[in-house]
């Protein structure tokens, strides 16, 4: 099985007519994702390579039965796009867009929790989600992920970093290990989906045998995940945390990747994860090796 999305998930792309939306939307469709609609207020009634464009998400949902959305709208429009999707009944919203203001993120995260508690938001500033062989929503290169194989030991991946996610997918593919779902939760200060959401879903997924978790400096999401693992996760977890050498007070590319005083250091996160029984590698390759050992021992 996979978590959050599979081959039956119907997805509407908000911003499909833009250059990024079109490029990745069509790649996602080629992968096998059910890309059923796009939205653009000005281009309703047209199509993008056969994918119908609607004026609103509500129109797209009414016509196609889409339950997920993928947002490629520029940052100023993201807040409105997220709320439009939620109000139209979309239950899984993926925001790829980078550079969304933190106050917008904090607002729509809390607004969704309150008024649309069933909605699962992923991102902003994330690579998206891929259930290999079934659905790919976002900007991940589908061919570097090996689909899960029934009856074998498969891995679930959750990560704050895009390229390190690809690295993890690729290393597992090289080792012949399948992946049930790989979730890129993104590097922003208020991610819609957290490590804990994914850990809980992987724990409940019978086809996922082990979990790979890739974190980075900043915030306390990894420490909170470590607590959750201690209390709720029985499956083995391997991890890598980027940014051991990052200086305090500097944003390392991602808006959320910043060490503030003594808070949010890689060392603190690694210590917390190790205390929770997680195997922590010192670089991505080592974490991959640890996962190979975990799978071999199951």
């Amino acid at each position, binding site marked *: 099985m996979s978590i959050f999305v599979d081959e039956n998930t119907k997805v509407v792309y908000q911003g499909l007519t833009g250059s990024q939306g079109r490029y990745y939307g069509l790649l996602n469709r080629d992968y096998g994702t059910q890309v059923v609609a796009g939205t653009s207020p000005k281009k309703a009634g047209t199509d993008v390579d056969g994918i119908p464009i609607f004026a609103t998400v509500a129109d797209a949902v009414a016509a196609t039965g889409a339950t997920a959305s993928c947002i490629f709208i520029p940052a100023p429009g993201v807040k409105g796009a997220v709320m439009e999707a939620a109000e139209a009944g979309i239950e899984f919203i993926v925001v790829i867009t980078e550079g969304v203001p933190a106050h917008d993120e*904090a607002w729509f995260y*809390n607004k969704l929790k309150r008024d649309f508690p069933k909605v699962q938001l992923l991102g902003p500033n994330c690579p998206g989600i891929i259930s290999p062989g079934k659905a790919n929503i976002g900007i991940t290169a589908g061919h570097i992920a090996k689909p899960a194989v029934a009856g074998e030991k498969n891995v679930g991946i959750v990560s704050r970093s895009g390229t*390190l996610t690809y690295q993890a997918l690729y290393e597992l593919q090289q080792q012949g290990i399948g992946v049930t779902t790989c979730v890129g939760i993104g590097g922003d*200060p*208020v991610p819609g989906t957290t490590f804990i959401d994914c850990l809980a879903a992987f724990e409940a997924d019978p086809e996922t045998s082990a979990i790979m978790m890739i974190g980075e400096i900043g915030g306390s999401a990894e420490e909170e995940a470590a607590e959750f693992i201690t209390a709720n996760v029985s499956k083995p977890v391997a991890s890598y945390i980027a*940014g051991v050498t990052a200086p305090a007070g500097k944003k390392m*590319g991602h808006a959320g*990747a910043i060490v503030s005083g003594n808070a949010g250091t890689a060392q603190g996160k690694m210590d917390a994860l190790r205390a929770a029984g997680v195997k922590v590698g010192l670089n991505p390759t080592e974490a991959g090796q640890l996962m190979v050992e975990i799978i071999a021992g199951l």
Partner: protein
Amino acid sequence: MDLFEYQGKQFFATYGIPVSAGDATSDVDEAVAIADRVGYPVVIKAQVHVGGRGKAGGVKLANDAAEAREHASNILGLDIKGHIVKVIWVEHASDIAEEYYASFTLDRGAKKYLGMLSAQGGVEIEAVAESDPDAIAKIWIDPVDGLDEATARAWVEAAKLNPAATEGAVDILLKLYRAYTEGDADLTEINPLILKPTGEVHALDAKVTLDGNATFRHPDYEAYDATQNRDEREQAAHDKGLQYVGLDGSVGVIANGAGLAMSTLDVVKQAGGEAANFLDIGGGANADVMAGALEVINNDPRVKSIFINIFGGITRGEEVANGIITALGRVQIDAPIVIRLDGTNAEEGRAILEPHLGDALQMQPTMLDAARKAVELAAGR
């Protein structure tokens, strides 16, 4: 974006938060003129993005024009923990009855705004948090609800400020909250927030960090961007739109993706070296961006070797390799380069790089191998 105190006070003033009469300058004569205008005694304060300026001699009281002149000329040009003072703020000195602390920031764990208020101001809040955590009254605010007056009033009571300060504090907290949210700030902090003997409450300092992602809503923030504290390398990278952070080591780093770039610094350290920088060129790794990145790194005198760490995702290995070769053709590079190329079509990419390899351009199969090689080359030069 971190604002200087004078920018923070101007920012506060636009939201109606009371600050002392004053002005900023880089000129001694003008400093004296400001002092004459706002009235003695005045305080002259160094404008730097670093704490502890008072102890370093960067904050002085002047009772007349002669003292103002003396202090202004001493503070301008002062080196405070490596930060040279280029601007001073001159303001009318305030009579202080009590000093408080107030701030708003984001609690990433709770995903709510965190307001902190304390009757113990004028000292570092981290120190108060450690020695007397109960002295800080905290409230968590749901961004959808915002902060109302009744909540602010209860909060002020919980912080046990002098009752004489209640009305002034409630008013300032509501305005500070507006500045935090409507101003798209990551942090708004007043330390100290003072109660004057006359009963007025007033912001004596201003610490503001603005969210660079929100500049589309605030075109005037571009002025703040121009005064950010960047070294020469960081400024050059910023001008090229690159995600760059200057560090102190000798291995120049270029990687695609923020996580991979951070990871590259870590691996260089594991190999026994130190990175000269963090540089994320994004997922695409095209020739233009690569050339710009190489230029910035090449102009850094610290750099003794360069480690290019690329993982091809959607962008295929051959595109990445062609980008690197094109970029190398445009920029004359002095330091030896070590490349690690992996991911989509890595074989094809490596084949393209093969004929160009030599002492100046080397290739290694893994991240760790490449880091070791780059560290070894840097140590040998």
